[in-house]
């Protein structure tokens, strides 16, 4: 679980020496003067400049004098230091040493404020506003402008979520440049001209970008605000805590701002190695899910007489849970994929040491034994690829992965590499999506189910990077092909806790630290390292996967289940799952009431990430530790709750807190013995049937982690079915007309869109209006039928 140093060889940097305000400084060639000046301690005021955006030189706030450009001749006019590259021998005089530069800056500042309202007291940006701050530090205090200011009706919604107060805008174009350069979503643009110039949208196309919230954060004034946060808090009343986002496996650094126990907003943190300064809108706006009315606050135990869940004391509930599990005979453990590594570790130890079983599987989604073997052999302990590698690799192949929807930071990094001309992206997919077009990706058009062959056919080499998505578990042979590939490999799950759960050994054949269940030495290691009274050995028998666990319950081989954060409708067969949950003695550790808690015998409320500390392990294998943001009395971690049950069962885990778990995990360390072999499953080819389903979940969808954010949800991409013209025609469906995909389990209807898919393939979103898994028992590579209508169309 340690991150290896980047394999990149360090290219020697050519240094250039220049003089700024009389101080000699050496900086890498190509450095802009504005940043070189920071190294000598001079902060040149700026607005349009942003280190991650291309220089534009628009605001003219950063003017400096250059008496010598390095060739013995100076510039006759002040120069914008944000667009001027250093040169050897250059002499720069900033506002510190040049009266001309100082006057130019004061003059520009005065002009910037000419049309800027004096509404700082009611502006969201007030208190954290670069314009306000720099007007104080570099302005002249009073304006001579006594004339008429430009005004606009306000606010102007560029999307449901992002509002624009045009009179505050200083036209630095950071937002439009971000949208075009970084996100590739130029749905906002500068419109009009001159003093009427403003940020605008198309007449009928709002700013629906997965990354739109970043524009709010980089706006140097209060022009862009979120509908969510507008007028709700003052920056100086907020307590800011660095954290890590929980919505995907990127491990994005975020900053959580709260006031009086309530999170008011989330911002992108600054982590150059991971998410740079960006996050997805999901990571930014979807933070109210844990504050919904269905939040569990007290333990519940099912009353044997009424059959209802009734509030119970913690001690009582833990006792009922312990007794029930003890009485259940064999018990399976389903931790889910949204846990911290520490919580997953607790489940892992709880299963082995307390319950004496390897029947544990974190995968709350479609999965396979091939995948389990792949995770054990090829993913655990491995850190072959980093974010930085993505923007430098000559070729990155995506297989069963749609980064814009499933791992937004991977998408942005790839786009950065592609735009710089360094990286070429190849996608093994059913079609080119909006996201893959923005990566200028080369499509290897592949019928779902045929990915294994596509990977094998690509002739990958050791310089290539192969990123595989979690839905390849649905394609027999695909992960075997990936494991056999010489390319640098990374597995990119959707959920934040999946990778950590792999490292914690929350799998039927894998123990903590990448140890195989099959290894007696590995088991002995762990028994010694994690002493639990009365436990002399950990079970040697390989366990069951989630699907088998649920089936084992239904046939009576298992009598109990310990379930973490699992959504029934995400599971391979929700009906089987419901049967099993009904039949077994179920202990559910959950944040909010769910289909699992509805069927559980004991419900033990646990803390959402914002109320606890812990570690998410990113897809890179990078541990992303975060501290607790909100201190909520009685909000317990899964670690603490499992420890409580274990103690009631007379087999104390030996750790109760996240910190203790961390210490123990470090003590256990990574396995250095022989690893389980990689899977060698043969490709099965696409499913039988006329039409095969290609599907994944869009970033903004109906997932419960996004509950409570209607405005954010309103920015979702429309839910449509995509298929080739021939496929639609064969089914008698016109472009734009309602189309229905169906299985024996059920059906879903969306408007049809002709797109460039292989014939006989249809794409639909996984959980936008309809959860395909729940409604159709269908997933990627399933055979479905396609037919016209009916008129009832799902509006996502």
């Amino acid at each position, binding site marked *: 679980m340690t991150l290896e140093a980047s394999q990149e060889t360090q290219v020697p940097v050519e240094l250039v020496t220049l003089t700024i305000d009389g101080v000699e400084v050496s900086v890498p060639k190509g450095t802009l003067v504005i940043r070189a000046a920071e190294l000598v301690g001079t902060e040149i005021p700026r607005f349009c400049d942003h280190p991650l955006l291309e*220089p*534009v*030189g*628009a*605001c*003219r*706030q950063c*003017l400096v004098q250059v008496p010598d450009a390095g060739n013995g001749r100076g510039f*006759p*006019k*002040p120069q914008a230091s944000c*667009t001027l590259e250093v040169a050897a021998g250059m002499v720069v005089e900033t506002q510190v040493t040049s009266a001309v530069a100082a*006057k*130019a800056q004061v*003059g*520009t500042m*005065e*002009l*910037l404020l*000419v*049309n800027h309202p004096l509404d700082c007291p009611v502006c969201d940006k007030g208190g954290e506003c670069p314009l306000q701050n720099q007007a104080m530090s570099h302005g002249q205090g009073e304006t*001579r*402008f006594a*004339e*008429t200011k*430009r005004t606009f009706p306000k606010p102007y919604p560029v999307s449901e979520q992002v509002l624009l107060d045009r009179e505050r805008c*200083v*036209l630095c174009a950071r937002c439009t440049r971000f949208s075009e350069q970084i996100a590739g979503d130029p749905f906002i643009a*500068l419109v*009009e*001209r*001159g*003093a*009427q*110039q403003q940020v605008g949208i198309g007449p009928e196309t709002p700013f629906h970008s997965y990354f739109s919230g970043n524009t709010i954060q980089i706006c140097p004034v209060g022009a862009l605000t979120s509908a969510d946060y507008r007028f709700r808090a003052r920056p100086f009343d907020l307590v800011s805590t660095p954290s890590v986002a929980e919505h995907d496996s990127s491990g994005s650094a975020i900053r959580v701002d709260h006031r009086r126990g309530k999170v008011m907003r989330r911002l992108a943190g600054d982590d150059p190695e991971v998410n740079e300064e960006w996050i997805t809108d999901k990571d930014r706006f979807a933070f109210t899910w844990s504050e919904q009315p269905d939040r569990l606050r007290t333990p519940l135990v099912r009353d044997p007489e009424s059959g209802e869940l009734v509030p119970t004391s913690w001690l009582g509930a833990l006792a009922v849970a312990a007794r029930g599990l003890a009485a259940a005979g064999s018990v399976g453990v389903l931790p889910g994929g949204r846990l911290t590594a520490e919580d997953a570790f607790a489940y892992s130890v709880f299963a082995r040491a307390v319950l004496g079983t390897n029947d544990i599987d974190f995968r709350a989604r479609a999965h396979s034994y091939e995948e389990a073997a792949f995770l054990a052999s090829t993913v655990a302990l491995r850190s072959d690829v980093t974010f930085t590698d993505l923007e430098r690799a000559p070729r990155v192949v995506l297989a069963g992965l749609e980064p814009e929807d499933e791992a937004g930071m991977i998408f942005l990094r790839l786009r950065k590499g592609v735009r710089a001309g360094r990286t070429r992206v190849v996608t093994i997919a059913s079609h080119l999506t909006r996201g893959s077009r923005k990566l200028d990706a080369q499509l290897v058009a592949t019928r779902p189910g045929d990915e294994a062959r596509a990977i094998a056919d690509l002739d990958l080499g050791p310089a290539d990077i192969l990123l595989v998505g979690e839905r390849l578990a649905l394609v027999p042979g695909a992960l075997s092909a990936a494991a056999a590939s010489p390319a640098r490999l990374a597995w990119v799950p959707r959920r934040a806790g999946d990778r950590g759960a792999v490292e914690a050994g929350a799998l039927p054949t894998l123990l903590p630290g990448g140890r195989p269940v099959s290894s007696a030495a590995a088991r002995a290691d762990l028994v010694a390292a994690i002493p639990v009274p009365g436990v002399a050995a950990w079970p040697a028998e390989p366990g069951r996967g989630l699907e088998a666990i649920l089936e084992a319950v239904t046939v009576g081989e298992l009598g109990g289940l310990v379930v973490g954060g699992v959504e029934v409708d995400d599971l391979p067969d929700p009906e089987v799952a419901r049967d099993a949950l009904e039949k077994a003695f179920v202990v559910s550790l959950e944040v909010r009431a769910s289909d699992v808690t509805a069927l559980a015998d004991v419900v033990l409320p646990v803390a959402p990430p914002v109320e606890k500390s812990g570690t998410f392990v990113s897809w890179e294998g990078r541990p992303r530790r975060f501290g607790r943001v909100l201190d909520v009395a009685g909000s317990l971690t899964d670690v603490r709750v499992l420890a409580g049950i274990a103690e009631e069962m007379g087999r104390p885990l030996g750790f109760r807190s996240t910190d203790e778990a961390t210490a123990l995990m470090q003590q256990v360390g990574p396995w250095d013995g022989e690893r389980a072999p990689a899977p060698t499953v043969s490709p099965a080819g696409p499913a039988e049937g006329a039409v095969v389903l290609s599907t994944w979940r869009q970033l903004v969808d109906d997932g419960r982690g996004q509950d409570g954010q209607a405005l954010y949800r309103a920015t979702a991409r429309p839910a449509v079915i995509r298929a080739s013209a021939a496929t639609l025609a064969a089914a008698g469906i016109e472009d734009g007309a309602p189309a229905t995909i169906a299985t024996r389990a059920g059906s879903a209807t969306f408007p049809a869109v002709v797109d460039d898919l292989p014939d006989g393939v249809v794409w639909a979103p996984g959980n936008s209006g309809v959860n395909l898994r729940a409604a159709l028992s269908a997933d990627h590579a399933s055979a479905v039928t396609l037919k016209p209508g009916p008129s009832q169309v799902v509006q996502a």
Partner: protein
Amino acid sequence: MTDTLTPVLSRNWGDDRAWTREAYEAQGGYDALRKAVTLTPDEIVTLVKDSGLRGRGGAGFPTGMKWGFIPQDPETEAGRKPKYLVVNADESEPGTCKDIPLMMASPHTLVEGVIIAAMAIRAEKAFIYVRGEVLHVVRRLRAAAREAAEAGYLGTDVLGSGRTVDLVIHAGAGAYICGEETALLDSLEGRRGQPRLRPPFPAVEGLYASPTVINNVESIASVPSIVSGGIEWFGSMGTEKSKGYTLYSLSGHVARPGQYEAPLGITLRELLELGGGMREGSRLKFWTPGGSSTPLLTAEHLDVPLDYEGVGAAGSMLGTKALQVFDQTTSVVRCVLRWTEFYKHESCGKCTPCREGTWWLVQVLQRIDAGQGREGDIELLLDLCDNILGRSFCALGDGATSPITSAIQYFRDEFEAGMLAPSRELYPPEASMLQRPEVAR
């Protein structure tokens, strides 16, 4: 000594159907092209370089030198890229009115120049970016390009030389800023016409990020005569550093406004004398040497040689040689306000000093024009100009300050009077009109 007026570009403007290929060829048109196809590209570049031709669009940069900047080394990435020639026919500078009549009367002069220039820089594609508000000029250019292609002057085998030159006539859509060459390029790429950062310079990364030459209409139209006449002939007109002939555009309160093609270095006094002086009863008050972006001059500058050096020495710029002449009936405050309103309207909005500065300047000037000027307004105007000049992204902001600072320099008392009385009372507008109401009927 050459004659006072030397019509070369305007020589055929009075000809019957001068815009047609037939009429143009009858006057020796396309003979220069026939000569040029016998020269190597580098020989043409050298010829134009040696002729001393300087850009006629305002900056006066040596045209041949500009062509020589185009990277031609096939060993380099830039050298391998396609090259483009773009003619700046976006004539929009207030007062400037030379290119439009040229293109209307004799579009083939320009087209011939385009073909020669394109061959010189090894461009196979050329564009004439003409402002959109001159419909008939657009018609004439399109027809000329069509006729030239029909005659084999344009196309894949120019006069059998094996060289390719295609020409696209591209109409703009109303934006003064597109006369700025990098804004023009963005506009020609289908974008908002806002200026680009330099470097990279257009010679290396211009249109489609490829090496590009951008020349004014008159500069390119001068090329055929230079090819035909040779460098000594060209240099026999004009001055040591400002060689050749050029179009001077006289407008305003003069007896005979119009186009006067003369060797560089003629004076306003000479030009006025040719046309019968000021209009009746008129005394020269102020004038622009080269459009509104060039600082105003006054009667004391009547004998300034109208070449790049002479006008520069007088504290202004030759610019486009757009001589807007105003007499004693004219309120300089009113004129300066109107020019400033123009710059405000045409500011592209990209940079702060120009966008906000012109917004502010207009408001200050409006109250002075209305007789409601305040104590300190003149100093405010001058200080604002100081904060705009040289601080803006491109030269539009600089140009906006020229009329203001020069007008205050020469007519400060009129601005002071603006604290007491409106300009329309001090200088009744009717008196300045072409047909003064009391005169006309």
